[in-house]
């Protein structure tokens, strides 16, 4: 699936990923390939991205995630 992590200041991640784990408002969850369409708000916490290059972790201060047709867009307000 295609994953994009965006902040207002820059594009943090863009490309293919196998899975992404996010801190949802109602508990942490993982998005895999062919996930159903979803919009969820996110709490401050860790975002874990698994891709062919290995695992990457980002810390976000809340945000929102949209999953649609194997395209995942994560809007984070600040990121480190």
């Amino acid at each position: 699936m295609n994953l994009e992590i965006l902040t207002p200041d820059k594009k943090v991640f863009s490309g293919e990923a196998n899975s992404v784990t996010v801190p949802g408002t109602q508990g942490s969850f993982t998005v895999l390939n062919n996930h159903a369409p979803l919009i969820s708000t996110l709490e401050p916490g860790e975002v874990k991205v698994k891709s062919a290059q290995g695992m990457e972790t980002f810390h976000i201060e809340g945000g929102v995630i949209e999953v649609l047709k194997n395209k995942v867009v994560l809007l984070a307000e600040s990121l480190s």
Partner: protein
Amino acid sequence: MANLKEVRGRISSIISTEQITKAMKMVSAARFRRATEAIVRMRPYADKLREILGNLSASLEDNSSVFAQEREVRNVLVLVITSNRGLAGSFNMNAIKAANNLIASEYAQLKKTENLHIMAVGKKGQDYFLKHRYQVVGDYNDLFNDLTFLNASAIAEELMEGYVDGKYDKVVMIYNQFKNAAVQVITTEQLLPISPVRDAQAETKTHKVDYILEPSQRAIVEELIPKSVKMQFYKALLDSHASEHGARMTAMDKATENAGELLRTLRLQYNRARQAAITNEILEIVSGANALSSES
């Protein structure tokens, strides 16, 4: 000859002015490029946010967000975005003038009762409004030294708090919208209460999808609205920042050109004066020599 020295002095002072304006133009050109890049980088985030918000809020029956309530307008905050430095042509004056016009035409009564507040981002605007005894709130001149979304959203949060607490019933923003390097458009935008029209327009373009919504449609919309207000404010800041450097670039380019023209005429004057002096000297020597030879 005094004239010769005078012209020489003017020439050297114009040369140094030209160097300064040229350097400022170069600096502004570099900053301008970075500022426009920041606008481009912000765009994907802003587009996606608008899309999601438009999708969700359109199908929400009553738009009862605290930020959408139209109240009787008793306190208005006018937000004027200018720059910290001058020498950018009419950039700052245009924003200040637009603010003055708006206040004179719509909020003259509020100004008399001191219910009109000004928030000036940028030193030039702040100086002006303080000097003319407006109610100026806060000091945000450091913002342009480190223009990031985080710093901008702190101010936006302050605005939203003021709105929710009833300190302001309306927030209007005046800034230079960025078109291209040479063109800035003075824009007046209402920041709060938010206008639902914009979201409805976005909805017609996007198709309906059955999303799983977590935690709920309303909760998501309520979380996204403050983000979109922050985004609108941040976009205005970035636009104004890019416009500032665009305006300065054009102004300094004109100044450099004028200096060059002035130099050309001054050099002509200088050479004429120099030649006249040489001719005079030769005349004196020749007539002196003639006088000597006729004596002997």
